[in-house]
């Protein structure tokens, strides 16, 4: 996964064992970013009620852009409207976007939303509250979380905290979702149940952006090779296959003259 991907500066730590599905984070985000009533940057995922009465369990966690280390959407975006800035935040330039929705398919976490209700829709996606960060504030979702289920800090801090929490609490799964998925992200999840049960997308650890680049970067080579090969064949056939051509030409010419 070379290509000099640097780890992001920030990280989220989201703990499904603490989330009570109050949805304050959802409302806060909508208010903070003036998001349309028909779209959202953050939403709840959960297990739904599991089991049979009375042996039941239920876990939820908010979900938003994972801010991948090597974002698939950034690699795929036709016009480069999605970019990863130097702090590792995946930001969206609403002025560039052409609404092709490639990012929606490229993102393995199924993150980008599009406000299809609008006549001229745009992508709706978490930007880690970049404006708030610049003012020294935490992201809106984190700042308002009643139970501390969403936490925010430097990437190292959050990862450390995640591992520590897991050690202290054996009820939590070993797997920290977001640590290695898609080549690594800035959002880490702790959960007492598997991420499958939380309805998180199953994402492999290799970077899909890297796979994409491996192929798209061959374009110049392919173009050059094609041009050269075609020229070569043409020249070869023109100067070494002339006699053959004349033979095949004639029967057709006679036929046309007859018609």
């Amino acid at each position, binding site marked *: 996964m070379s290509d000099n991907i640097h780890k992001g500066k920030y990280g989220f730590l989201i703990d499904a064992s603490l989330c*009570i599905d109050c949805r304050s984070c959802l*409302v806060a985000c*909508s208010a903070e970013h003036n998001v349309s009533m028909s779209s959202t940057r953050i939403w709840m995922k959960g297990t739904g009620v599991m089991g049979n009465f009375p042996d039941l369990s239920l876990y939820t966690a908010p979900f938003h852009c994972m801010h991948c280390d090597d974002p698939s959407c950034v690699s795929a975006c036709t016009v480069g409207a999605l970019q990863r800035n130097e702090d590792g935040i995946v930001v969206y330039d609403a002025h560039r976007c052409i609404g092709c929705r490639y990012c929606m398919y490229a993102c393995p976490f199924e993150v980008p939303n599009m406000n299809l209700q609008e006549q001229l829709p745009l992508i709706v996606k978490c930007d880690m509250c970049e404006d708030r960060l610049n003012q020294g504030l935490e992201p809106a979702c984190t700042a308002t979380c009643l139970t501390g289920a969403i936490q925010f800090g430097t990437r190292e801090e959050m990862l450390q905290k995640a591992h520590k929490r897991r050690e202290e609490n054996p009820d939590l799964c070993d797997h920290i979702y977001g640590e290695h998925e898609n080549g690594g992200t800035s959002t880490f999840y702790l959960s007492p149940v598997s991420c499958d049960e939380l309805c998180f997308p199953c994402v492999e650890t290799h970077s899909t952006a890297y796979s994409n680049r491996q192929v798209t970067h061959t374009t110049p080579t392919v173009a050059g090779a094609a041009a050269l090969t075609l020229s070569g064949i043409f020249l070869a056939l023109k100067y070494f296959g002339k006699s053959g051509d004349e033979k095949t030409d004639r029967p057709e010419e006679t036929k046309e003259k007859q018609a």
Partner: protein
Amino acid sequence: MKNSISRRDFLKITGNTAGALALGSFIPPEVISTALESGFIDSQGNGYIPTLCEMCVWRCGVLAKVQDGRVVKLEGNPEHPHSKGRLCARGQSGLMTTYDPDRVLQPLVRVGKRGEGKFRKTSWEEALDIVAENMLQIKEKYGPEAMLFSSTHNLSQTQFENLLFAYGSPNYGTQRSLCFNSMVTAFLLTYGIEEPSRNYDDVEFILLTGRNLAEAISTSETGELINAIKRGAKLVYLDPRFTKTAAKAEEWIPIRPGTDAAFLLAMIQVIVSEELADCDFVRQYVDHCDDMPEVFKKYTPEWAEGITGIPAKTIDRIAREYAAAKQNAMAHPGWRTSNFVNSFQTERAIATLNALSGNVLTPGGCLGAESPEASSVRLGKPPQPAYPRAVAKRLDGVPWKYPLVPLKLGVFQEMRDAILTGDPYQAHGWFVSRQNPVQALPDRNRTLQALEKMDFIAVVDVIMNDTSWYADVVLPESSYLERYDPLHVVGDEVFIRQPVIEPQGDTHSALWIYKELGKRLGLEDYFQYQDEEDYLLQQLEPLDGSLATLSINGVIKPESASGKKEEIVFNTPTGKIEIYSETLGRAGFSPWPTWEDPPLPAEGELYLLSGKVGQHTQSATQNNQLLHKYEDKPRIWLHTSTAAERNIKTDDYVRVTSPVGEIVVRALVTEAIRSDCAFMAFGYGHRSKGLRTAYANGASDSDLHVTFTDPISGGQALSQTCVTVKKED
């Protein structure tokens, strides 16, 4: 009533004023310069202004972010103990209440029939004149008692009460009997305080009886509970429904509705019969302690198993675990536990359990014998003459029918019923402020019938809610982000609610409305303040603090505050914890906490449970678009087997019938509820077409609720109604 303002127009209205100028018109000049100097607000009038939330009764401190004269974001105020820097979903959505396109922006006078929703806009002069005229007429013809006043408790309550007491009516309805009468009455009788404070710092064992803290959110307390669990505290939670709190509980007890008291009484029995409590310690504070084993002997876990459906072993074990945690065990008082008539006894049992653990006797323990509302701060108030004596009996039966219900709690549903019966006398007028009795009272049809009997109804409201829809005059109050309210004391700190933006349209604060109405009623002398700021200045007088500082910081901590009391005092007749209450005995009720059989559903009937969701505040917020965006669709919960028997699938329409009403609503089939129960979230099914987002969304359980009143506490038993459910074709 057509409201032609679209959401876009609305935001345009608010966005026009230049910042600093706007600021100058409602904050005294002294404040601006101080604020500017301290960097609180910049020269454009952009910045954070502290105030208080009003999206529920918890009243978190808020920092309102203002830009170009508009509120653009609300943050929790880290300085406020109720928010500690956080806001729940409702708190965060507050700006959409202020910018709701369905807000009433001008006084309205009804022109069509009641309930048609036809109003004409008018001036404040005319509206207030009409209200005063009608109120004076009623007073003259029928006496002041014929005018009813009701309001859900809020910061301007003192002036609301001032109005009604000055007017001379004894009839005062609050929401309390729909909420926590059972708890308050029980704790008043047992501890002498209205509500014990809770402390989660060291708690090890928490027993929650109902009180769905994860969904009936009190911002700071909800956070503290979850953190206690994270720290390792054990939560045992009693509820017939698997709520979000149940999901966080170490043990969820799916108890039969209305039988919590049996469970708790059995716990008490185990503890006292085996002397698990530290009796010597407890004996100092609890009267008749030695009689307890005999009194509670009959309440065995085996007996409780038959009633609650919970295995005796479990009850026994939990009782022991509770006792083992000693003073670090808390039986949470909640608001009304199972919401049955016997909830009073349940609360008495809770008070008993806390006494036995000794938590309330430990300074700084997890339960405190002082009310969270208690404070040593004494605010000033404007001078006023004494109130006239209200001679007539209260229509709500306090105290002549309900001898033990405190006057300030009342029995609201009784007042409504008295309108219909005309007994002991007929009421003729109703003045409502910040309340929606049409949605809140049980048996909505009855409430609407009662409204029909009124000669005159005036409502103070922010939005065209259901009660406003049936009013004769609607007086639009400014939203909480646009007004001053009397100061709010929490502990030994004083917090301010102040306008952060100019009021939309032609709206005013309740302080202003009550004073103006008072003037026209000839009650000027009772409202001796010039304006809101003058009122606040008078409140601040005995304290060391200026309004300017308070406006900037949002809080002052008066030096006169003395801090926490040393001694633990119980404000009961004996000065001790009265598990045995002579007062109850003399009133003809059981002096000990006792078991009362709740009604059982008949064949084919289900208990209809009511409850809250984390995204709404009762019936007040369904029109808020930000909350509507993220709410769960309102559906009636049915257990898988219950639904299967009736051939019902999720999202099918079902007809729900109770002895007093009928509704049609969508179903949700789930495992998360007992098979003998159905559940509906409270507050949906609005009738007011003036609520374009909320209108006809879901159905209202208040159409189904039968009015059951506890004779001791006056509490309404909202979950005691049983219903039949069948698929609607």
